[in-house]
């Protein structure tokens, strides 16, 4: 999509005047940004609505029912409008600069990670070779917004929340990174598009079914991802029954809603990441688009439709992940800080390390994955293409000086 907009738009705008080329670029960039921002903002709106609806059903209630028709579709929007109109309060003792800037830091970090997140083959804000790594890294910055909010608020509860967040997120980055390495290792690349494309074909091509180790890795990944985006039962940073509201105790109105958007943004982000890394990304369980020929080889439009279907597929998978997070949140009590750290250091990290080792050995000795090992042939005769990295590695002699 990136190329589509950039090339067409720039050509169109700069048709007449040379000076208009920058304008074309800026317009194209703006459209990209708007698209991504929509994914984050509309996604957050949708998931907040979903959360309320699911929570309602879990608790024998209906959830929102009035705003925007029968199912309360527009409830979040109405809430957003309400939040905008609210007074923007700041404690007198707060550090004005840090207090004001913190929500934007949190939101920007969550948003920036979407830059490298592909939604279908080629549909990505910025194609990065180290996309997985970049996303994890940028997600780590979100913690900074929380810490600054906690420190800048001049409230003891906020400070508690910030310290908890710092300790928790920094700890959970380790097992999270280890878990991510497992599919990266199987794919041989950190390029998310390549990882997604490698899982094309039938459902057993998904990395989660690659071998027993990846299967376990996924659950560890999901646990750690839940912890690193601060969702219950790991939502210690806000822990409303202990810390009033944790790091955002002193926030109100729009600034508070930025934290909220950041939370839901990163929730969706890690779910998409899980879907791409373990659940085949934009490839369905059965490669229907492939069978009926909706791909680039049959023309741009077919490729476009195929990609659209793939994106829908990915979003459905990711939404399922988010729904599980919501489900967990409304079912379980919250862990204590020592238990959270124990879970990370005593369970998640060793398990992830073992899975990493196991998967590495598996790839070394049984490179075709579980199903190839069990001699289950692929009915579609789909063969995996080696990732660019592997090709590069396989041909050292061709390597050129960069």
């Amino acid at each position, binding site marked *: 999509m990136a190329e589509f907009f950039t090339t067409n738009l720039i050509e169109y705008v700069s048709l007449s005047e*040379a*000076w208009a*080329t*920058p304008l074309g*670029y800026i317009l194209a960039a703006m459209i990209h940004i708007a698209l991504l921002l929509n994914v984050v903002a509309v996604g957050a709106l949708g998931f907040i609505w979903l959360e309320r609806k699911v929570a309602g059903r879990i608790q024998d209630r209906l959830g929102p029912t009035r705003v925007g028709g029968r199912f309360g579709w527009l409830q979040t929007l109405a809430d957003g409008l309400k939040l905008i109109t609210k007074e923007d309060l700041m404690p007198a*003792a707060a*550090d004005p*600069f*840090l207090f004001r*800037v913190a929500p934007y830091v949190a939101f920007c970090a969550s948003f920036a990670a979407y830059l490298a997140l592909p939604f279908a083959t080629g549909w990505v804000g910025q*194609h*990065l*070779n*180290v996309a997985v*790594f*970049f996303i*994890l*890294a*940028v997600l*780590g*910055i979100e*913690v*900074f917004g929380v*810490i*600054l909010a906690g*420190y*800048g608020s*001049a409230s003891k509860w906020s*400070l508690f929340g*910030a*310290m908890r967040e*710092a*300790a928790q*997120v*920094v700890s959970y*980055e380790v097992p999270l990174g280890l878990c991510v390495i497992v599919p990266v290792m199987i794919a041989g*690349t*950190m*390029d998310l598009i390549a990882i997604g494309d490698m899982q094309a074909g039938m459902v057993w091509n998904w990395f989660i079914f690659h071998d027993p180790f990846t299967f376990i890795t996924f659950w560890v990944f999901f646990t750690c991802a839940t912890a690193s985006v601060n969702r219950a039962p790991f939502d210690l940073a806000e822990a409303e029954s202990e810390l009033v509201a944790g790091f955002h105790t002193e926030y109100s109105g729009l600034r508070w809603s930025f934290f909220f958007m950041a939370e839901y943004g990163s929730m969706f982000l890690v779910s998409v990441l899980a879907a791409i890394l373990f659940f085949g990304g934009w490839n369905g369980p059965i490669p229907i688009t492939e069978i009926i020929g909706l791909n680039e080889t049959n023309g741009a439009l077919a490729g476009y439709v195929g990609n659209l279907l793939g994106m829908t597929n990915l979003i459905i998978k990711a939404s399922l992940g988010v729904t599980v997070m919501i489900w967990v949140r409304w079912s379980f009590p919250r862990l204590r800080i020592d238990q959270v750290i124990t879970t990370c250091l005593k369970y998640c990290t060793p398990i992830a390390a073992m899975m990493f080792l196991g998967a590495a050995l598996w790839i070394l000795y049984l490179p075709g994955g579980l199903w190839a090992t069990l001699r289950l042939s692929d009915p579609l005769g789909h063969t995996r293409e080696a990732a*660019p*990295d592997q090709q*590069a*590695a396989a041909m*050292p*002699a061709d*390597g*050129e*000086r*960069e």
Partner: protein
Amino acid sequence: MDQINWHTFFFLLSALGACTFALMVVFTSNIVRMAFFLVLSLTSTAGLFFLAGADFVGAMQIMIYVGGTMVLLVFGVMLTAQERFVSLKTSGGTWSLAALAGGALLAVLLQTAFSVDDWKAGDTAQAGQSQTTATRIGLGLLGARFDEGTSGYLLPFEIVSIHLLVVLIGAAYLARAKRRAKPSADNPADRSD
């Protein structure tokens, strides 16, 4: 009018960010704000790395520096805060001396930077194409440099690994839990300054 070189444009943006926030680190006395500006400066630097084609190092910079080291630093700031929003004042003499030395150093460095013609402009047209660096770096760290034909960095890599382990133990030892079994009044080490 010439075409805007977008690589240059983004370079200037990142460079401006990196330099401005670095200056703000120097001129802020509030330690948490300093940390915040340092984060912005380091993130802009990561942008520069991306622009120079070192995407892996750029991501590494964000992950380790910003996500790890800086969080650690802010942690330290919070643990050692004597009163809220710590600021230790520096005397004017120190400032002027530092400015003098810094200015001189900057002049020398800038003069050096622009002294070689070959360095003044590159061929950034190819910068847009993404290149895979992670594999090469990984293999380089393991001692296989297929693109250079030279040996890699296996020994430094191992040394750094050991070094990190030592640091881990050392840091844990330095900030360890101190258990003192029985009070000994004559132990000067126990006395607080």
